[in-house]
């Protein structure tokens, strides 16, 4: 420490309250002899102290939410280990004895896990998939909507379900098992009654959506190539059926998850690819939280609104078909490429199509429940 720089060391220590009494005394002495420096020091001292106020300015509401989320996440973590670690630990034991010793140190839980794992050996690819399959065999409650209608219903546990047009849900009559299982084809909006002892699981198109008291929307029509899950409140965990080793995806409020479906045809090929590169193909997006829930695209239907944004006519037609219970026939390919933004609340079919036509020109004719679409020809 050079003599000339000593003053800086002392000032720094004093400001940070790290200096000894001797150092303080020495500093005071030096500063008394140099008024410029003394002023300097005073300024810095002010500057130092005021930082406390900034950190104090807080966002109470936001903090509360964060903290409850942390606690929820912690609960989820605590609930999961049993199901997740079984296959992993089993493999490790077979491969590496060293780990076995370490593992046995956590005796209690592990012993139980190992025994259960041995018993379910081979069958335990995924408890949840088994349940999904079982669900299809037992006698069930089915709630279905046709095209053109939406419905709202309640499950035996008090969970409210809104079903969009052309959708079906299947669940056990008594709904009283260790988990609450529902199978979905189509689109539904769930407001799940919280019950941490009985997780609520939605099975659809190869994925399982596991929730703990939340509000969320699932879009999974058989014709769709993807499954979309939008979380409004709470927390969900999404896993791919049959791939227990893949890490689950957690959804936080205002996030939307789009997962690629594996089509039946591709299953074998896909399984091979995924053995080498086990990644769920998905996209996780953050939704704009400044938009009110009732104004959002993903859940517009719950508020009786049909919405589309920048979607091509073919996709829009799919939505229109279900919404109005009509069949739409495209007479040429060009018309399918038109894109639309729009939102319909109370319009009739004709009104809707007229509106669409003003946005992007095309010709249409309605005959009963059928609508024929033709693009505008230039000769016109």
């Amino acid at each position: 420490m050079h003599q000339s720089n000593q003053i800086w060391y002392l000032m720094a220590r004093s400001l940070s309250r790290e200096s000894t009494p001797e150092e303080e005394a020495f500093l005071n002495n030096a500063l008394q002899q140099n008024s410029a420096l003394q002023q300097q020091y005073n300024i810095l001292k002010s500057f130092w102290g005021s930082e406390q106020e900034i950190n104090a300015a807080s966002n109470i509401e936001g903090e509360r939410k964060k903290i409850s989320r942390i606690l929820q996440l912690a609960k989820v973590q605590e609930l999961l280990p049993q199901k997740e670690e079984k296959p992993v630990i089993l493999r490790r034991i077979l491969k590496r004895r060293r780990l076995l010793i370490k593992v046995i140190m956590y005796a209690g839980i592990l012993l139980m896990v190992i025994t259960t794992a041995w018993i379910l050996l081979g069958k335990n690819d995924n408890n949840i998939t088994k349940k999904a399959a079982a669900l299809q065999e037992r006698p069930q409650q089915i709630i279905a909507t046709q095209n053109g209608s939406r419905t709202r219903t309640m499950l035996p546990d008090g969970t409210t379900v809104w079903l969009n047009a052309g959708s079906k849900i299947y669940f056990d009559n008594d709904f009283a098992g260790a988990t609450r299982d529902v199978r979905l084809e189509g689109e539904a909006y769930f407001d799940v009654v919280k019950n941490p002892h009985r997780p609520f699981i939605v099975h659809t198109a190869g994925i399982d959506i596991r929730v703990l008291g939340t509000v969320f929307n699932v879009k999974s029509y058989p014709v769709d190539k993807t499954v979309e899950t939008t979380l409004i409140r709470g927390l969900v965990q999404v896993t791919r059926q049959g791939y227990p080793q893949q890490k689950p995806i957690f959804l936080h409020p205002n996030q939307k998850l789009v997962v690629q479906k594996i089509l039946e045809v591709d299953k074998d090929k896909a399984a091979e690819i995924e053995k080498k590169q086990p990644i769920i193909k998905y996209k996780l997006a953050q939704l704009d939280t400044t938009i009110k829930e009732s104004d959002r695209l993903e859940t517009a239907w719950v508020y009786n609104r049909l919405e589309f944004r920048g979607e091509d006519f073919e996709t829009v037609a799919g939505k229109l078909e279900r919404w109005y219970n009509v069949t739409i026939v495209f007479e040429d390919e060009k018309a399918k490429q038109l894109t639309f933004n729009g939102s319909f609340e109370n319009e009739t079919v004709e009104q809707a199509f007229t509106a669409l036509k003003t946005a992007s020109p095309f010709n249409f004719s309605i005959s009963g429940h059928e609508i024929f679409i033709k693009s505008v020809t230039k000769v016109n």
Partner: protein
Amino acid sequence: MTGNFKTIQQRIFYNDETALAALYQAFYVKLQHFAKALVHSNEVAEEVVEDVFVKLWCNRSNIVTIDNLTVYLYVAVKNNCLNFISKKAKDLIASPFDFLDIELSEGSPNPHDILITAEMMQRMQKVIEALPPRCKMVFKLVREDGLKYKEVSQILNISVNTIDAQMAIAVKRICTAMGIEKSRKELPL
């Protein structure tokens, strides 16, 4: 801001959720800033801090074994950030902050204090922004977060002597920039 957290530790051990809340409240802003300096993203920083608290709560049965909760939290955040950046980044822990572009907290003290003019404020901020990365990080942790030299040395894995030196450099630069010159008797660095 490194008071005694022993009571909070105990309360957490006994499953008191309000203690976790209090701890979070006390630290999250600083930890997020710290994390952001490393990962450059608000979302990732928030997530890292959240993960650290989730893990803390999950392992609350071991919490009383932690000697210094402050250091633990910062180190946990640091490690999570480095994991996020890359596995290889762990090797850089020896000189961790030379490569990083560090932003200090955006809130600035109220310049309407008698002693500090707005112009002086600006000059100081400018100097602080221009500090070399490691110096800047040390200065931030000591001044903004109120950590002790010893804690900073544990978190950043550098010696207390180095911290002394870095702080001295920072103070010197700020004073020099404020335009008030030292008396001629003293020699420049």
